[in-house]
């Protein structure tokens, strides 16, 4: 599975993931305490500049991830034009683009393995409460492995439906799809047990 990390190596790729995530939380939290439209405008320019630094290809890639925001930006600005509070509307819109933009920047510059290390670190306090981190790691690996498997099974189901009917399958396809997933889950559970299970690992 392809992660959303940008293949274009930036300087930020080498920064510790925990630091980036911590900064992101602090900055985003801080953005909600400032109400000046000028500040948010300047900050947005700064965020756009961050996207532009690693070059054109990185910029375009990042742009694609932010496209989901435009309908909301449009609604916010239109709403505030209507209520005659344009500065407030622009503040909200700028802040939203900056916050999502920064978060997306962290995703684009942090490798999956680094992120998993952070998750590992975050769950450390839970281990004292009897939480087994290997269970979480196994579950993550299972999802990454099984999602493409299920997608291809879903596609074969859709094809099988099309071969038999000229109408669209609609929601009915979800029933056999879910049943397939449940059967897979049973098989995976048996396979895990056959290989010694999870309780064995705990004692090591």
């Amino acid at each position, binding site marked *: 599975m392809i992660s959303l990390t940008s293949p274009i190596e930036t300087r930020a790729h080498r920064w510790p993931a925990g630091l980036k995530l911590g900064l992101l939380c602090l900055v985003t939290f801080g953005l909600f305490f400032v109400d000046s439209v000028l500040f948010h405008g300047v900050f947005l320019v700064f965020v756009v500049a961050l996207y532009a630094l690693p070059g054109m290809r990185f910029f375009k890639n990042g742009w694609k991830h932010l496209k989901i925001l435009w309908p909301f930006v449009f609604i916010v600005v239109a709403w505030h034009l209507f209520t005659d509070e344009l500065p407030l509307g622009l503040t909200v819109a700028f802040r939203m683009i900056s916050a999502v933009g920064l978060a997306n920047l962290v995703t684009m510059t942090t490798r999956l393995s680094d992120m998993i290390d952070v998750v590992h670190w975050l769950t450390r306090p839970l281990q004292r409460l009897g939480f087994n981190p290997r269970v979480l790691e196994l579950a993550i690996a299972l999802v990454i492995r099984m999602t493409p498997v299920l*997608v291809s099974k879903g596609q074969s189901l859709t094809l099988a439906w099309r071969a038999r009917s000229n109408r669209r399958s609609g929601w009915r396809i979800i029933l056999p799809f879910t049943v397939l997933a449940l059967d897979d889950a049973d098989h995976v559970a048996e396979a*895990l047990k056959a290989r010694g299970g999870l309780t064995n690992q705990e004692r090591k």
Partner: protein
Amino acid sequence: MEKNIAYIALFAALIAALGLIPKITLGFGVPITAQSLGIMLCGTILGAKRGALAVLLLLLLVAIGLPLLAGGRGGLGLFFGVTGGFLIGWPISAYVTGLIVEKWRSGSITLVSVVASIVGGIFVMYLFGIVGMAIVLEKTFLESAALMTAFIPGDIIKAIIAGLLTAAIAKARPASLLSRQAKATS
């Protein structure tokens, strides 16, 4: 233990896969994102705890940068945007849905699942989603709620579908309906 992990992981994968298969269109042309249907099914089939854990696992993978949400979306940005509240509400939504199915055992599974999906999958999810929107957009709760009314009919249809599917799965794979097992083997 192994069964729990396998079911939780497979359901997380199922929700992801539901977002990646071609869009499902209802009879009268309303496209539905099957993922929120997946959240409802998580609750009705896996029950409260496992359902919520499956959704949490999916969100964790989305947060660390895997494109598992509808249309190949993912990354931290989704949690900081307008829809962030909905994502935070997802696990709680699955939990409430599952809890209702677990506790209310007298009714028919179809009816119980539809009601559970409406309470958990619509009421709880909208509550979180609307609060999230109100914070990000600086609107009042009611103004944000007004923006969402257009989606309610589609979601009610989804809840009914979730109920029908749960009943069908209860027939096809009775042993897999963990929400209604006598006592969960953990």
